[in-house]
């Protein structure tokens, strides 16, 4: 073998390595949407969807920037910046505007966004959008939420691309992260517990996505499920998120009634530590829920040791 021939085969080996690597990356990161046949026969209930909208604080991340269209009416028209360690996101317009909102989305488009983290054109959303929690929701509930959003007045407010380094590659790479972090998250009720406890567990861990901030994450930003809701560094800003375990033992709240009032009124009733790190907006959204749902969340949280 001459030196050039050896050189040529080294180049060929390297090229093969790159091609195999790219192909593997492409296969492992490919989006896996649900087909429209997965949709159940269900008459959507926009009122139930409104409760899910508030428990999920959808309007707090998808709010309009100050002075932007929809801001005055408090509509989820998007455009406000959401800074994270990964980059700055501009959560999308959730009003039914056909051009800039979800007006032209089909029901299965919305279900794939919520439970698979996929856009209607099949691209991965970044997990700053907590589909990892919403994946616990039954499709019927996702359709209720969709019906509520479609009942809102449409607002024309163009969506902005996220400000993330190497956006295209990073977006595709989320597929790989999903393989490790997403899994089967459907909520399974515990028959040994009350209906109210199960409702609370579902609202907290599914649409409420409390664990996204209250569960610590590992170096790959995957929540550590062995320390579920045990608190840790705030994922998006400075400071520490408190643990939601042992709230009774730590003397934070007296009983279910006490925590219910705390979630409904927060600092207005003299309950401290319910405003920082984004919690004020969440508490004020929870205040809009039926009292039975806030009690259910409280019952579930106080059962965690």
């Amino acid at each position: 073998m001459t030196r050039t021939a050896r050189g040529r085969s080294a180049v060929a080996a390297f090229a093969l390595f790159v091609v195999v690597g790219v192909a593997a990356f492409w296969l492992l990161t490919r989006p896996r949407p649900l087909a429209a046949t997965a949709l159940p026969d269900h008459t959507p209930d926009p009122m139930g969807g409104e409760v899910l909208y508030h428990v999920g604080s959808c309007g707090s991340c998808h709010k309009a920037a100050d002075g932007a269209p929809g801001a005055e009416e408090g509509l989820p028209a998007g455009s406000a910046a959401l800074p994270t360690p990964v980059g700055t996101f501009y959560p999308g317009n959730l009003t039914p505007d056909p051009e800039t909102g979800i007006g032209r989305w089909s029901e299965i488009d919305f279900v794939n966004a919520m439970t698979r983290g996929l856009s209607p054109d099949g691209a991965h959303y970044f997990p700053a959008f907590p589909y990892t929690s919403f994946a616990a929701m039954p499709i019927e509930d996702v359709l209720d939420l969709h019906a509520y959003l479609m009942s809102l007045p449409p607002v024309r407010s163009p969506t902005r691309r996220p400000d993330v380094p190497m956006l295209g590659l990073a977006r595709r790479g989320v597929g790989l992260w999903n393989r490790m972090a997403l899994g089967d998250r459907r909520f399974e009720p515990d028959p040994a517990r009350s209906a109210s406890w199960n409702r609370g567990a579902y609202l907290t861990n599914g649409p409420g996505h409390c664990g996204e901030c209250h569960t610590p994450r590992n170096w790959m930003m995957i929540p550590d499920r062995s320390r579920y809701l045990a608190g840790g560094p705030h994922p998006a800003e400075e400071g520490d998120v408190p643990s939601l375990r042992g709230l009774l033992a730590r003397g934070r709240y007296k009983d279910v009634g006490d925590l219910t009032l705390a979630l409904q009124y927060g600092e207005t009733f003299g309950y401290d530590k319910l405003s920082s790190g984004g919690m004020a907006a969440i508490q004020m959204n929870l205040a809009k829920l039926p009292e039975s749902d806030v009690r259910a969340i409280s019952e579930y949280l106080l059962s965690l040791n």
Partner: protein
Amino acid sequence: MIRNRKHTLAAALVATMTFAGVGMAVSSTDTIKDRQDAMETVGGAMQKLGAIAKGEAPFDAAVVKENAATMEEHLRKASTLFPEGSDTGDVETWAKAEIWTDHADFVMKLKTAEAAAEAMKSVTEESAFRPALGKLGNSCKECHQTYRRPKQR
């Protein structure tokens, strides 16, 4: 003689620098402690008002006035306890850097809370209590959500 004077000068200089350094450290730590005490007092008075809203205590205009006055006084005191350079000290502080980068907005929010506490002082009717408490509580939330780091405990 000259050498001695040099020594004395050097000693004086070192002493001044040491005292200045210690003085600064102590004062920033003291300031942080003072403002935390002031805010604890504000929080304690707010809990008394919260107890009335929760129905744990009866509505009593005198109790409302007393606690609202405590809040107003300590909020006013707190507004002097966030000087430049008091972002760190020898005790843990939850004050965010934005207090000093957006200082005008911070001061405005603190003044809003002070005004809400003052308004609460003149509440004598139970029907006016809840709206006034809503305003006061929101002024706490408004400031804390922007300018206070979340606490682990």
